[in-house]
């Protein structure tokens, strides 16, 4: 055997050995990762979720990072821990929020990995779990609006955004815009009720009312209620300012208040006119226009809508 032949022979042996080593390593890693997953599943089935997570989570950044089952069992365990928290306390406690957040991330990852190749039951189970979690977010939106306290707006909108984010994974075609409009309208209403119930005036609450209605209009340009309610809130705010005038009000304050009121009445006019264009025979909009124009001392326009209102009332009674 010459030197060259010997070199080639050694080369072949080396390449072959490396290939065997590499495949053994990969096999051993997969085997190890599957082994960890199976153990974690066993623990999760025994409802030992903390133990399951202790085993599976370190592997998610290493050998099991591309293992859909591993991500699913981790997500599932966090979801179950979230359910436990809800059962003993609230879905919005710090721990529950943290568990739910982790569950969502891990279940989405499980679904993404699994659906990249031939989907297995992991995909459908991940989606089922995500469906449950999305609804828990929606439930928190409704509870948040019902028990609304000052400054909860961002928190509630965050729940809704999470809900939409998960739903877009479940079905990209789903459109939740009309629900978002309702959430914004409900937040506007909640802030208004808070504003009406507080003894001290709050410009911040009023701004929130207006911002929520504007956002609702931005989302759905055809929403009548948002426009009508926006107009009423602006108008009533002006009236409330006027009502605040009393015997202690100085002349210059009276002038300032009047300026501020007229500005609010003018702002109320556009959304009220837009609402009227959407539904020309609606009595409350016509009444709104009669009132706003009157407050702006525009008797001519006020009378015009008054006649239109009378015609609608007459047509209704016939």
């Amino acid at each position, binding site marked *: 055997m010459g030197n060259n032949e010997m070199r080639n022979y050694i080369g072949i042996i080396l390449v072959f050995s490396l290939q065997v080593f590499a495949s053994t390593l990969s096999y051993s890693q997969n085997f190890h990762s599957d082994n960890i997953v199976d153990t974690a599943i066993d623990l999760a089935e025994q409802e030992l979720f903390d133990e399951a997570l202790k085993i599976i989570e370190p592997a998610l950044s290493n050998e099991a990072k591309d293992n859909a089952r591993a991500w699913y069992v981790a997500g599932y365990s966090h979801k179950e821990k979230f359910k436990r928290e809800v059962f003993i306390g609230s879905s919005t406690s710090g721990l529950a929020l943290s568990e739910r957040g982790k569950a969502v991330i891990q279940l989405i990852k499980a679904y993404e990995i699994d659906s990249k190749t031939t989907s297995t039951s992991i995909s459908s189970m991940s989606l089922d779990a995500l469906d*449950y979690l999305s609804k828990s977010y929606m439930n928190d939106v409704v509870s948040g609006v019902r028990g609304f306290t000052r400054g909860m707006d961002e928190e509630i909108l965050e729940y809704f955004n999470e809900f939409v984010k998960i739903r877009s994974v479940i079905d990209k075609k789903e459109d939740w815009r009309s629900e978002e409009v309702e959430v914004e309208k409900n937040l506007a209403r909640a802030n208004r009720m808070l504003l009406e119930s507080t003894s001290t005036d709050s410009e911040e609450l009023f701004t929130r009312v207006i911002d929520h209605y504007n956002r609702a209009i931005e989302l759905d340009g055809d929403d009548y209620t948002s426009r009508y309610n926006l107009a009423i809130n602006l108008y009533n705010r002006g009236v409330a300012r006027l009502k605040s005038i009393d015997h202690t009000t100085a*002349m*210059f304050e009276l002038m300032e208040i009047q300026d501020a009121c007229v500005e609010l009445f003018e702002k109320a006019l556009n959304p009220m006119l837009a609402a009227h264009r959407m539904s020309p025979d609606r009595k409350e909009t016509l009444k709104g226009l009669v009132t706003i124009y009157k407050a702006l001392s525009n008797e001519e326009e006020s009378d015009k809508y008054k006649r239109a209102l009378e015609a609608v009332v007459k047509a209704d009674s016939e």
Partner: protein
Amino acid sequence: MLRHGIRNIYLLLFAIVISLSFSWLQSDQGGPKLDEVNTIAITKASFLFQFARSNDWPNDKKQGNFRIGIQGNTALYNLLVEKYAGQSIGSQMLEVVEIDDSVLMSEFIHVLYTESEGDELLQLIEYTAEKPIMVVTSVDADSAMPEGAVVNFVVQTSRIRYELDMENALKRGLIVGNRILSWAITR
């Protein structure tokens, strides 16, 4: 794999709860109600109180009640009563009265607001001429300030403002305060 049956039942119940939540969100309960209070009357009432407070009347009119009389605007009368009755103007108690001819004959009115126009207004001005009565009118925006009136409400860029006839005020023995003077407009 992991308790499928129980999960499915749970998810079904959850779906029902969520659909109820959606319908709750979509119900438009407790929408804002239009505040129908008469804003023009509030503004005018506030001005009339300022006129009462910031001008000066002859000494012989600084006894008894200080009267603001309203003719032809019940909403304005009601608002003044609601908001300012019981307040004092200097050492006088403020009294708001709804004006008819019999009241004019029997009681002295310090500030007299009227929505009369034409002959009726002329008669009123004639009757009150040279008396220390601050006659406040509110005529159509296109009409000039009525002869003999001291103050006239006008609409300017959607705001209620007032014009002042100083000559008439002086003729009637009224001393118009600086604050009132400085906010008066001219057309």
